[in-house]
């Protein structure tokens, strides 16, 4: 098993097929990273929403209690 390419230029060029191989790599990485980042962001958003809901609920109970 040996290294197939000698220079950076060769790696980018990929024997003339550089555009195809690297666009495939780019889209693959974008999709894979996106599939991880999106649920992580959503996770954070949902936790924020739940904590806001709870805070609102607590406040409502407090004012309802004080009203009585």
């Amino acid at each position, binding site marked *: *098993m*040996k*290294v*197939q*390419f000698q220079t950076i230029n060769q*790696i980018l060029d*990929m*024997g*003339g*097929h*550089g555009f*195809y*191989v690297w*666009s*495939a*790599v780019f*889209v*693959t990485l974008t*999709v*894979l990273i*996106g*599939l*991880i980042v999106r*649920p*992580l962001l*959503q*996770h954070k958003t*949902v*936790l924020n*929403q*739940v*904590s806001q*809901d*709870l805070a609102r609920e607590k406040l409502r109970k407090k004012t309802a209690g004080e009203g009585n």
Partner: protein
Amino acid sequence: MNWVWFYRLASPLWFYQTTTRWLPWLGLLAFILLATGLVWGLGFAPQDAKQGNSFRIIYMHVPASFLALAGYFLMATAGAIGLIWKMKLSYMVMKAAAPIGAALTFLALFTGAVWGKPTWGSYWVWDARITSMLILLFLYFGVLALQYAFHNEEASNKASAILALIGTVNIPIIYKSVDWWYTLHQPSTIKLTSAPSMHPDMFQPLLVMILGFYCFYIVALCLFTRVEILRRERKTGWVGDLVGELNGSTEGKRQ
């Protein structure tokens, strides 16, 4: 036989807690496998005699295709389990599997297209496998659209599960039909992967990539399912406690 483990699986809380513990490690494994496979395949595997370096796209295309198809069956199975055992967590997994599968199907189609251009001269060729993959993407779109169309959660679960199952039954029929249709009009079948005659030096990084993609899929599936769990269980005590814990820890740090 002791079925306790099966019924414990039904608990969203158990799932959430277990994944909180194990997911970072699985994610690390997936990252190592994918990085290794990609570098190996792009830089160290020998190039193909006929296709030159463009064949390296195989290291992304084939695992994506595998997972796209396997993901559909997983989605349908999760739906079936939800229908039969009325397990809410199973429905959540089914819902999580849909966008991941659709994204991977798109990835398979895109990488297939950029592979096709240097190989066959055209970005898009109506060959049996690509056309079947396109129809799989449409099946995914159908399930995704149906999921979000219902206001009632239970109806949404059941309808999506049934549609996923109908799609599953149809996938072999669709594949066989498209295959027959293609050989009808194209006597010379062009094989996208010369799998049986692949040199081990080319095949080994592919194995690594396939394993890496499987691990990645599980990680992504768990992440999406966790979000779904939080969304659906937001009124329960344990979610409230969890949020309280996280808030409490940040407040402590601020002071």
